[in-house]
């Protein structure tokens, strides 16, 4: 019972049919079209299944700021490293562990004996604090709405006094606006992230669509989902129209998850913040509200990051340009040479959602 239906999401005939339609639409449009996705899982699907090689000439898929680890700013990593170096236990997601700050990563700090723990959830960080009541435990909290809501949930659930949060959470919608306005980023349509939209709801993009006159399709991450998302976006472009569609209804609704959103906005407020390599973006960082100041690591500790010299190689790193959709991983001279998952220079080579790591793993634009 499962097999036939499972295959339909990868059915090569169905894929070819959609690609034929993409060909036809591109012929109709008669000029290059750029579509941007803002989700590491989309990039994984695109690279893993070699979808770029199937696309008609002139249609390019750009990567947007869809990797939360990649856009976490270096000074935020420096804060976490400074806390750990000062003897405070820093708990963080595995994806953040190796991300280089100005003078090393949390992994480097751990190797020097600093207390760093990898956790898989905000709850685990709280458990760590409960199990070690004599230690201060700081959860270095990163990620978009899908992890910000869980961080908020543990803060509204009366965490222990020795627990606090160093928030590097990011909020995607304002970043899409900034990227849409970047002069070098001429985007004809956005393939929006399915899972973040599970929380925010796709209705959130209505304003974006009308203000930037750019179509948005919320898409799933199976190969055919991605191709169908592209087809819908090209339909809009060919008709010179804009619109918003939810092509991922099994996980995304118009309203989103109101409980998660309420919890998130109770604890966090949107503030301006630097997205690594992109820009300072108004309202795109999530800071703890005053009511939760007692759990704010920035209030609790006097954090003095080491102002050491950055790795000189980091100046050549194109992570920011890649996140802004203006460069591909293989445009970077360090890609796969000085910068590898084992010894990363930039965050894009660290995270499983990082485009550089994905391209290195799947060969960038592999044959089908």
């Amino acid at each position, binding site marked *: 019972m499962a097999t036939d239906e499972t295959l339909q999401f990868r059915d090569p005939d169905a894929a070819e049919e959609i690609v034929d339609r993409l060909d036809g639409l591109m012929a109709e449009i008669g000029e290059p079209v750029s579509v941007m996705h803002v989700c590491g899982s989309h990039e994984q699907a695109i690279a893993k299944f070699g979808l770029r090689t199937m696309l008609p000439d002139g249609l390019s898929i750009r990567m947007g700021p869809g990797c939360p680890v990649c856009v976490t700013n270096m000074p935020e990593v420096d804060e976490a490293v400074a806390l750990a170096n000062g003897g405070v236990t820093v708990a963080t997601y595995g994806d953040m562990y190796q991300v280089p700050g100005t003078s090393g990563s949390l992994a480097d700090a751990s190797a020097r004996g600093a207390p760093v723990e990898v956790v898989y959830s905000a709850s685990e960080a709280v458990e760590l604090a409960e199990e070690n009541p004599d230690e201060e435990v700081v959860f270095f909290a990163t990620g978009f709405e899908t992890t910000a809501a869980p961080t908020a949930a543990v803060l509204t659930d009366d965490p222990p006094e020795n627990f606090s949060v160093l928030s590097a959470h990011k909020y995607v919608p304002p970043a899409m606006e900034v990227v849409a306005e970047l002069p070098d980023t001429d985007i004809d349509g956005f393939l929006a992230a399915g*899972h973040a939209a599970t929380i925010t709801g796709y209705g959130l993009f209505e304003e974006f669509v009308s203000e930037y006159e750019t179509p948005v399709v919320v898409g799933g991450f199976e190969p055919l989902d991605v191709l169908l998302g592209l087809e819908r976006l090209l339909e809009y472009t060919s008709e010179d129209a804009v619109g918003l569609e939810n092509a991922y209804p099994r996980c995304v609704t118009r309203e989103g998850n109101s409980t998660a959103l309420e919890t998130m906005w109770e604890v966090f407020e949107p503030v301006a913040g630097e997205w690594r390599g992109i820009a300072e973006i108004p309202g795109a960082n999530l800071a703890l509200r005053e009511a939760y100041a007692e759990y704010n690591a920035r209030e609790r500790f006097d954090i003095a990051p080491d102002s050491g010299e950055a790795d000189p190689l980091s100046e050549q790193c194109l992570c920011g340009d890649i996140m802004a959709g203006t460069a591909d991983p293989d445009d970077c001279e360090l890609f796969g040479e000085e910068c590898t998952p084992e010894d990363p220079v930039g965050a894009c080579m660290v995270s499983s959602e990082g485009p550089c790591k994905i391209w290195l793993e799947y060969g960038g634009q592999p044959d089908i």
Partner: protein
Amino acid sequence: MCLGIPGEVLEIDGHEARAEFWNVEKTVRLDIVGETVQEGDYILNHAGFAIRKLPDDEVQETMEIYESFLEGDEDEALEEIGAEDEQLEFGERPAAVERQRAVTDGPGDRRTPQEGTDGD
């Protein structure tokens, strides 16, 4: 960190649940799922929290899509659910999907007692 993973709720204790992801069991928080979740329901787990209850009529298709997507990337899926030392068992459909289809007549129905969850 971006990819949610669907699993079946086996047992609920307050705002925590034991959930099964292709024969790997993990604790999942239900605080922010925003819907009433019962044993036998399927949820989308993201970093230890259920962020959506899958509608009954979408469970089978969703599980198949995820299996198809995760195949070959099992390690990453295990990392997502915080169970690096375990093994996902794809192939056989999770028994619960069949079980659930068999006992669910419509939204809100109470399900029959779960089978095979005594290994929790």
